[in-house]
Structure formats: C-alpha cells, structure tokens
C-alpha cells in the first residue's frame, strides 16, 4: 500500500488544480446539478419566506348565536374585528357542524339563546369548538378565540358594566429576540441550514458513487493522485456552490424578509463554511461507503436532510422529545448549526453557545474526514 503510493505522499498543487478544474467543469455542464445547487435554493427561499408560516390569519370561523341581544352582538363583533378570523354567522348548530365536517370552517363559537340573561346572573358560558386535526393550529386558534372574548369582557369590566372587578393577576408576555412574533424570523435561519445540508450531502453523495458505478475511480487510482487530493478536488467545487447558496439566503433574508442580523455577519459566514464542510464530508462518506447512486441518494436523504428538517430543533423543539430521540439529535451536526444560526441572527453574539457549537462542528468534520479516508483507501489495496 505504501509502496503503491510512494509518489503521492505529498500533496501536489498541480494535480489538485487539474482535478478541481475537471470536477468544476463536470458540475457546471450538468444542468441537473445546477438545478439543485442554485435553482432549488431560490425555490426554497420563496417557499419558506412566503409559503411556510405558523402565524394564523383569516381562519374561517362559524359563530352561532341564538341570542339577539346587543350584548351578544357586541361579543360577536369582537370576532369580526380580529384579523385572525373570517366570520360566518349562522343560526343553527347543525349547520355549523355540517360546515366543520366539510372542512369549511375551523372553529365554532356558540352563544346560547339565554346568553345575556345568564351573563347578568354571572353564569354565562361561551362554547368554543375547534377542529383538532391540525393540533398546533387548533391550539393557537383556541387561544385567539379566548383572547377575543377576554378582550371584550375586560373592556366591559373597565366600562363598569359588570360588578366584577379586574382579575387579580394579569399576564404580560414579551417574546425576546422576536418581538414581532413572526415565524419567518426563525424559519430563515433554518432555511440556510436546509440549503447547506442539501448542497453538501445530496450533491456530493452522488459524485463519488457515480465514479464507482462507472468504474472511473479505479482508473484514477493507478494515477499518482492520492486520496487527499481526490477528496479535496471533489469538495472544492461543491463548497463554492454552497457559498453561492449561502449568499443568496443571506441577501433574501435581509432584503426580502427583513430578518434582523443581531450577531456578527462574519461569524455567520465562518460557521456556515464550517458546517458546509461537515455536510460535504458526510455526502462524500455516504457515496464512498455505498458506491451506488440509488442507495447513496436514499441514505443522504435519510441521514442528512430529514434530520436537518425534523430533528434539529429548527421547527420542533427538542425539549419535549423522549430521551432517545434527544440523544440522536445531540450527535447530529445540524442541531448545533441551527442553534448557532438562530442565536447569531436573532439574539446576537453569545460566546458560550457559539464556542460549544463551533467545537462540535470541528469535531464532526474531523471524524468524517478520517472515515472518508478509511473508506476510500480500502479499495486501493
């Protein structure tokens, strides 16, 4: 083995350059590569920025009121004024339930015929029924409905219409780092993670596997090229594509979606480069280990992309998952990249967190590099 590689122990810049130029040309000539590398980020930016939102607006709600008193109408007008609801007013509960079954309304607010009489006796009830199929949305809708009603009853208490005093304790909530409470602000940093993962793992996982499948890798092994040069030449062009994706995301985040960047931009770029290295190496490792394009793409999807979407704390909080799932997410690099980016974008430079995240990413890239070398070298012998 060492005899075979006697010429190639030292890195040769000339060989590296030649190989890199070849890889870059190959990358640029295949339109499908560029589609994933450059077109997909644009699509994702638009989808994430405009399509994905956890903020509810204009949810269709049916209000059934059998009470025609001014008080009841006053309660209902609160729903008409709220930006969260689009109200349909109905006479009968049967009709409302039919609409809910047909998926035409997402919630029903029900006031009984004796509502105002019972309110005078401090014994009134308003029923709020929500369709729980989309649980998260249902919960938010429920609290918005309660909010609309509470607002009305506070107004009433202030106006002195009721005997009851203000409630003993009120709540004042502030959402730090995201005062506007828009989900776009945390979705855009997450989007960068997805695009970096995609570029890295999916594109590169196919590169090496394709060469194995076509047998061109074996012919490379008889040339003086050493493993390090081979790996580097595969990484460099895709690293470039990744950086272009990053730049597009940052620009879109700043100028299209107005996401604040409270930390340092340089740190964002540096840590993104580090993560890009990790995900590129993961892709190369997958393709070196499977040597088959179909398997490589499936494994890349499962080990890199889906965890980045679902297990990184980007959409779903990791605090509520069972210990075993949390253990899995602690060994996945995207978890740390998500944390670092969300912090850098929305909170600012928090040294304690960032040092930890950086250290983990460096460790991950070293481990992956060693694994790639082992997997590629084995075939040389």
């Amino acid at each position, binding site marked *: 083995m060492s005899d075979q590689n006697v010429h190639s122990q030292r890195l040769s810049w000339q060989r590296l350059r030649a190989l890199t130029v070849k890889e870059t040309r190959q990358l640029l000539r295949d339109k*499908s590569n560029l*589609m994933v590398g450059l077109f*997909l980020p644009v*699509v*994702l930016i638009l*989808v*994430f920025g*405009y*399509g*994905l939102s*956890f903020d*509810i607006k204009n*949810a269709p709600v049916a209000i059934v009121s059998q009470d025609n008193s001014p008080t009841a109408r006053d309660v209902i007008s609160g729903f008409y004024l709220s930006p969260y609801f689009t109200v349909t007013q109905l006479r009968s509960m049967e009709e409302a339930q039919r609409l809910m*079954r*047909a998926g035409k309304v997402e919630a029903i607010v029900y006031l009984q015929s004796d509502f105002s009489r019972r309110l005078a006796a*401090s014994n*009134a*009830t*308003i029923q709020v*029924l929500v*369709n*729980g*199929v*989309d*649980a998260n*949305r249902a*919960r938010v809708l*429920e609290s918005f*409905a309660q909010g609309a009603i509470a607002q009305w009853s506070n107004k009433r208490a202030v106006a002195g219409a009721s*005997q009851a*005093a*203000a409630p*003993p*304790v*009120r*709540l*004042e*909530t502030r*959402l*730090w780092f*995201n005062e506007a409470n828009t*989900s776009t602000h945390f979705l855009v940093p997450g989007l960068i993670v997805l695009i970096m993962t995609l570029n890295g793992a999916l594109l590169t996982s*196919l590169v090496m596997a394709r060469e194995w499948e076509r047998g061109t890798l074996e012919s490379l092994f008889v040339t003086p090229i050493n493993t390090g040069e081979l790996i580097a030449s595969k990484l460099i062009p895709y690293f470039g594509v990744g950086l272009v994706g990053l730049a597009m995301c940052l620009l879109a985040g700043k100028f299209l979606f107005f996401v604040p960047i409270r930390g340092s931009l340089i740190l964002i770029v540096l840590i993104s480069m580090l993560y890009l290295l990790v995900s590129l190496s993961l892709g190369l490792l997958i393709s070196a280990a499977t040597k088959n*394009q*179909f*398997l490589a*793409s499936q494994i890349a999807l499962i080990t890199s992309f889906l965890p980045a979407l*679902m297990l990184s704390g980007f*959409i*779903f*909080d990791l*605090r*509520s998952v*069972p210990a*075993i*799932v949390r253990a*899995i997410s602690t060994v996945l690099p995207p978890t740390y990249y998500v*944390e670092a980016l969300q912090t850098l974008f*929305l909170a600012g430079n*928090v040294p304690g967190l960032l040092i930890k995240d950086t250290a983990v990413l460096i460790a991950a890239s070293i481990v992956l590099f060693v694994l790639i070398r082992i997997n590629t070298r084995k075939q040389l012998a």
Partner: protein
Amino acid sequence: MNATLHRIAILIRKELIAILKDPRSRLVLVMPVILQSLLFGYAATFDLNEVPYALLDTDRSNASTQFVSLLDGSGVFDRVANLSSAKQIGETIGKKRALIVIHLPADFERNIVSGRGGVVQVIADGRNSNTGNVAASYVTAAVERFNTQWNELHGGSAPPLRIEARAWYNPNLETRWAMIPALIGALSMLQVLMLSALSVAREREQGTFDQLLVTPLRPTEIMIGKAVPPILIGLAQSSIIFLLARFWFGIPFQGSLFTLYSGLLLFTTAAVGIGLALSAFSKTMQQAMLYTFVLLMPMMLLSGLTSAISNMPKAMQYLTYANPLRYAIDLVRREYLEGAGFGYLIHDMWPLAIISMVTLPMAVWLFRHRLV
C-alpha cells in the same frame, strides 16, 4: 387482450425482481419508513412536556410564593434557576438556560390586594417563536388557575363568563395525532417518487430501454408495467406506517379502510405518474434523482405537513393545487381522525385522478419522443 395482460404481468414481475433482488435495496425500502415514523412520531411535536423557567421573584410575599408553588406543582414547569436581579435575565435566556423567565415585580401582592391587579411578567425566548408562544400559553393557563384559587380563598366574585373550549377529533390537541397520519402519505411518497423516477432512467442509462421499445410491448403496456410495482411498494409502505400509527402510537382509527385505501391508491398512482414522467424526461439516473428532488422539496413543504395551507398567500395556495401530497394529507388525516365519509373526501380524490390522467399519458408520450 389476454396477450396484453400476459405481457404486462411479465414486465411487472421483472420490475419487481429488479427492485427487490438486492438485499440492500429491500432494506432501504422498509427500514427508513419504520425508523422515520417512530422518530418523527416522537420528535415532531409542538407540545412542551417540560418548560424550564427561571424565577425572578422580587416581591417575596405570600401571593408570589403561592403563585410559584402553583407553577412548580403543575408538573410542566421546571425551575432551573432563581435570579436575584433583572440583569441576569439576558444571560439566562441568551445562553438557553431557560426557555422563559417569570418575573414577579415588587408590588405584586400589594396590587392584588388593592384591587388594581398584580402583573406577572413573562420573558420568552423567541428564537423559535412557536415554542415561545406555547410556553407563554402555559403560563396563561397557570395565571387563570391562580385567579380562580385566589378568588375562592379571598371571597372575590366568580368571573361572570366562562369559556368552554373543546377540540373535535383530537381531544387533547396532540401534535402527534396530526403528524403521523400525514406521514402515511408523505413518507411513502418520498420513495415511490424516487423509485419510479429511476425506473426508466436506469434503463436509459444502461441502454436497455431501446431493447424494451422494440419488443412487442406497446408504450402504454410498458407504462403500466413500470407503474404497478412502485404503486404496490408505496401502498405497502403506507400500510406499515398505518399499522404503526394504529398499534404503536395507539391513535384511534375512525374511518373505513376502504375509503382510506381508495384514496391512497389514487394518491400513489398520481405520485408514480409524476415520477415516470420525470424519468422518461431524464437522460441519466443522476438527472432523474436531482429533478425528483427539486420537485420533492416544495411538494413536502407546501403540503400542509408542517404548516397549514390556509396560512399561505393566495398565489402559493394556487400552486398547491398541483401537489398530490396536499390532497393526500388532507384525505388521510380526515379519514383517519374524523372518519369523514367518501362524500366529504371527493374533493380530494378527483384532483388526484386528474394528476394521474395527465402525467401517465405524458410519460407514455415521452417514452417514444425522447429517445437518446
């Protein structure tokens, strides 16, 4: 007619062997589906089992102690730190030591007693605004409990108005109930699309597709032979996820199997139609894979899987009309959780049929008109 059926049956058999003969491929068709269902079933939840909070109690009165013991006794709030000054709030939240800081100001009890009303301040980490909002809503519930308790103890009047909230179909509003039925469509589509996209492209790359075209098989027969195996595999994967949902996660199935599977059959056929059309269009396997991926991503994200379609701007909503997964998720969720009958799901079914009727003939046409 018989000869046609015979030829198609042979092609189906050959396709199934091609997909299933490699043990690694077999594994890749079964294991990820199971693993992902389990993983996402547990991970994909917006509910918080535990809210780590830091307490800043500057009042240190009876009332504030009562409020804190109500929080600590709730089983949801987990006190991770006691702060002594407001200056510490920044660091506690910034370093993610706590998700929220609860601040009881110095005049907390005084204001309650005087009738002006005390204030509980909550500072939540908005880096994931969704989580922050959920945590804050838990504090709202705690405040309401405290108010009721306080009024009972101190003879305040009961609130004149009660709100009774109930959720249909998912009484405890568990995210998992919404997520796992949706996965029945989403996870199987991932692989079905990829499999069908590779099927023609692989033969093109290896040069065997030309040979197939000169056999007595007509293009439509080739299409059927190529479409049936991934449809079967897709339905098998959906069934695995369905069984996990029903028996591992114990989510009660309200609908009828017949309606569910008619919907799934339509959906899988539509997905295979898209895959085959892409496959017939691509020159190499790599192209087929990457095109599929470019399509798959927006399809997953704009399907209602993680965020509701009605939240999207109108233009985006129109785009989702071409997305089979959008109909499948609505259909499976409603059939599974609501037991909505055939009549309520027709509006999900006919678009799926149309997508199949467009993409499958398109694949047939591309078989002949894109020879490379």
